[in-house]
């Protein structure tokens, strides 16, 4: 009997271990493009604020996520639906700064994280790190600094979240991931409701990477150009330059000298 149970436990453990082995697959690369349009962190995605970077539809959380940077700060836009909003709703981002491609970190090697919720006031964001499952430690409570600014606004069935975080914070006590132009880090997303324990959606930590791009975004999802208006502007400029240049030449070459013949 004991032998059977032992064999069952060994078999179960082996199957679970195999299931836990991560399947080698390429992570989806999300890009934070360089931008000169600094968004106002007010939880409102205003016209032109986020049209210069692509947004990504994240299937696990159902959120639309966009990143960009201005070489100093990382800006994040998250829009996710919620039919029955609660003040305890939250959205979290985890950075795999220890590179283990696993959720959470450990006491010796924590993962950097940031959380946004309307439960946090007046700043709706918290700079934190994770030392184990559901073990969120706020940076400022561990001798570090809270380096994020965030607003989370509920409007028409969606939460709109805008976040600003310095690319490099130098907050070692807060275990902040240091992002530099050209660097890449594993990233995960989670959303749920505080107080409901494990009832939340979360992506695997080997699903996405975030790369801080040096270039600006030039893809089709950027700001749409009004071609007709653009052409009119060019024509107006060319007419202005040509007309005044020729006029200048005519005036200076056709002016008879005083007293001359």
């Amino acid at each position: 009997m004991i032998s059977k149970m032992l064999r069952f436990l060994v078999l179960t453990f082996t199957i679970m271990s195999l299931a836990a082995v991560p399947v080698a697959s390429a992570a989806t690369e999300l890009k934070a493009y360089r931008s000169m349009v600094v968004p106002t962190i007010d939880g409102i995605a205003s016209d032109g604020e986020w049209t210069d970077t692509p947004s990504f539809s994240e299937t696990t959380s159902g959120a639309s996520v966009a990143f960009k940077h201005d070489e100093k700060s990382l800006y994040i836009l998250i829009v996710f639906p919620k039919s029955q909003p609660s003040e305890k709703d939250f959205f979290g981002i985890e950075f795999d700064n220890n590179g283990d491609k696993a959720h959470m970190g450990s006491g010796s090697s924590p993962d950097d994280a940031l959380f946004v919720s309307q439960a946090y006031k007046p700043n709706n964001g918290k700079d934190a790190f994770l030392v184990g499952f559901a073990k969120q430690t706020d940076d400022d409570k561990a001798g570090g600094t809270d380096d994020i600014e965030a607003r989370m606004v509920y409007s028409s069935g969606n939460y709109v979240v805008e976040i600003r975080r310095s690319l490099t914070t130098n907050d070692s006590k807060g275990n902040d991931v240091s992002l530099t132009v050209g660097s890449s880090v594993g990233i995960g997303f989670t959303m749920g409701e505080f107080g409901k324990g494990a009832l939340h959606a979360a992506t695997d930590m080997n699903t996405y990477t975030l790369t801080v791009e040096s270039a600006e975004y030039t893809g089709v999802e950027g700001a749409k150009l009004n071609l007709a208006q653009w052409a009119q502007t060019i024509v107006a400029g060319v007419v202005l330059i040509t007309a005044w240049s020729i006029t200048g030449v005519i005036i200076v070459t056709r002016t008879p000298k005083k007293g001359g013949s």
Partner: protein
Amino acid sequence: MNLRALHTITAEMHGGMLTLAGVCVLVKIVAELYLRVLGGRVPLLDRFARGVSRLVEPTSYVAAIGGSVGLVLSSVTGMGVWPIEALLGSGTVPNKIMFSMFALNLWLIFVAIRTKFGESIWKRTGLAAVYVVVGLLGLTFVVVSGSLAGHLTGKGSILDPLYEQFNIRVDTPLLLESNVAYALVVTTGLLVIAVLYIHSLMAQRRESES
């Protein structure tokens, strides 16, 4: 043929040549001003200024021709390198194209003036002033266009502090409203006609007085 490599060559070529043309114009102004204001005091400096002036004048002309040709070639190769999506999806690309066109416009006028009037431009102060203004405006647009190219390649630009100072967003298309563009063209046309008419009246009066 690698179109991207060709675009890089033509872009570097027109950037370098037009900058050389602009710098030559600046050097020519300094040399001419020196000779007219301070000339005759230090013979060695006079000779140096005359020599420099003689060299930079044709250099600016040749460099302007080469740069204009390079700019046209760069535009053609650029169309092959940059997809239409880049034009529609970015503010920086249309701004760069627009400033390049303004630069080309000015440099072609610069070349046309020099071709028509030759070196005698410098003997007529008014004409020299128009010639210099056209060249320096052309240089300005080349510099701004090059700065936008820096943004597109992610390198940034030394003009960025200036953009920040004046709150200019280079990645937002700098567009005129349609009615403003039309008004600008019509107003320019009317003003040019008025200015030329007044000028011809004044010229006639001056001729009759003399």
